[in-house]
């Protein structure tokens, strides 16, 4: 799905995501932080996940969101994340939005697949494919409960043009994001009856720490800010939630 196709008009007074219960992974930098801020501005209740305790505390203080210190790539952390979600934004048993945003670039500097260690590919798959799979599966009960209560709940998996284009040097990242996009499409078909929509959206290039690590020295001024992409992604989510279930 291209975000440029999304209808951004919103004539209602309250933001369509006001009161929504949302979880964002990778919430302390780049697009994730912009999403936490945009969701909070929209009046959503937010829990976010990131690895660095000091940054988590800082963002929690700034935004009033619930901070969870964990690594989505670590199997042992996933139920602990769900426990803290259930004790905060998920306390009434339902969630409206999960954004699987946390991503790993794979080995940097970027390199050809032939020079990529197996362990580096495994780590990229753990962060970009298995992590979103595990967290979505663990939170599927509350997401389905949200879907049963009227509007569809949404799982938004942040994708990349590297999921489709065969860019040399982007093997670990591109393969894991391609896997995530296909996982999203299948899960969306399976969960439609539960009122859960699973989207995979490419937000486009942005001025983020991940972009700087991938392409050091690019002209940052020419890149869109993550806040613009965050608003466009949330508009796409609001559009899906506004669709009446058949």
């Amino acid at each position, binding site marked *: 799905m291209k975000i440029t196709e999304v209808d951004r008009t919103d004539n209602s007074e309250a933001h369509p995501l006001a009161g929504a219960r949302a979880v964002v992974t990778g919430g302390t930098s780049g697009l994730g932080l912009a999403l936490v801020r945009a969701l909070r501005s929209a009046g959503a209740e937010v829990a976010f996940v990131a690895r660095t305790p000091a940054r988590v505390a800082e963002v929690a203080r700034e935004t009033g969101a619930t901070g969870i210190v964990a690594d989505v790539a670590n199997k042992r952390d996933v139920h602990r994340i769900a426990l803290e979600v259930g004790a905060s934004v998920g306390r009434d048993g339902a969630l409206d939005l999960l954004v699987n945003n946390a991503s790993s670039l794979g080995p940097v500097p970027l390199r050809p697949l032939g020079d990529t260690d197996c362990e580096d590919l495994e780590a990229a798959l753990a962060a970009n494919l298995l992590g979103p799979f595990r967290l979505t599966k*663990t939170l599927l*009960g509350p997401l389905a409960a949200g879907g049963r209560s009227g509007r569809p709940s949404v799982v938004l998996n942040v994708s990349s043009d590297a999921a489709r284009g065969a860019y040399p040097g982007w093997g670990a990242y591109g393969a894991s994001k391609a896997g995530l996009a296909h996982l999203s499409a299948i899960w969306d078909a399976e969960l439609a*009856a539960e009122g859960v929509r699973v989207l995979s959206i490419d937000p486009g290039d942005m001025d983020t720490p991940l972009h700087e690590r991938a392409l050091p020295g690019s002209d940052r001024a020419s890149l869109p800010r993550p806040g613009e992409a965050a608003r466009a992604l949330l508009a796409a989510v609001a559009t899906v939630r506004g669709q009446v279930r058949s």
Partner: protein
Amino acid sequence: MRPRTGTLVAAGTPAQRPAGARLLTLDRQGTITVLPRRDWTGLVWKGDLVVANDAATLPASLRATHRPSGRAVEIRLAARRTLRPDDLVFDAVLLGEGDHRTRTEDRAAPPAMAAGDALAIPGTRLSASVIEVLDHPRFVRLAFDGSPPEFWSALGRAGRPVQYAHVPEPLALWDVWTVIAGPPVAFEPPSAGFLLDWASVAAIRSRGADFATLTHAAGLSSTGDPVLDARLPLPEPYRIPERTAALVRETRARGGRIIAIGTTVVRALEHAAAHGLLEDRSPLGASGTFASTADQRLGSGTQRAVVDVLVSGTHAPGTSHHELLRAFVPDPLLDRVDRALAGARFRTHEFGDSVWIESRLPSPWNARPRGPR
């Protein structure tokens, strides 16, 4: 004594849906049948409502140090007065040194407790203080220190699921969370729900039935102490979303059956019905949901108003779960069920086989004239 042809077998492997799981069904005519459990949704009829408990299981077992004596203690969180995550006051059962591999009834006694004693959780900054010793030396009310986010973060790191000697391998949360698990409020898993998977939820819908949830804080099944065990189940807070209450009303109005996945669902729905909470225009909370605390005991002679079918684990006579079956089935018939389960060597406990019990006892709503099916 009646001759026994077999006995129940403890299920010791933490698999929620093992391929060989079995289901004993008792229908309204009193016929007993044994099926592969994976076929259970074939027993659901068009117009029925299946209700399950979406409580996630707390890592309710914590290793602690009793500050005044310096001795090791296992805290088993057992009850709470509310479902609110900012309520950090728990009633807890305390056990002395040892772990789950020792049978609970053989565990050492904890050191003597007094109000004000501190319990520290090693490896965390978490600590709790004894507010009062309840009416048993192993049963205390604890208040955890710190903010709710600090508590939940530390509990997730330091706590483990409560477990018993029949399952030797240490359990992880993923072993005890059902696929629909959400709010972490259960002290032991609502394990009847282990038979649910997303394919069965879809199958229920494709049969023209509906699926709904409630949240009920399932409590400990055993404390290892006969005096405390006799008081189980403790009062358990629950919450019923208005959508679920509305579906119960609609299902009853069209003559469909209410199928409860687990004794906790029975306890919540029957408590709500007995207090008029399932009626339309019931006192709703802000989110269209109401909460209360189930403090009744269900057993022989209990008037049921709502639940027609109970899907439950296999429980031995004498347990509170088994006692609840007497609210559904007259004693002579229940005795036949028990003998059939033992004869077929059904597996018991949370990872065991299951029963599907259709009520033979009249309930007020059952007695109402039914609409066309």
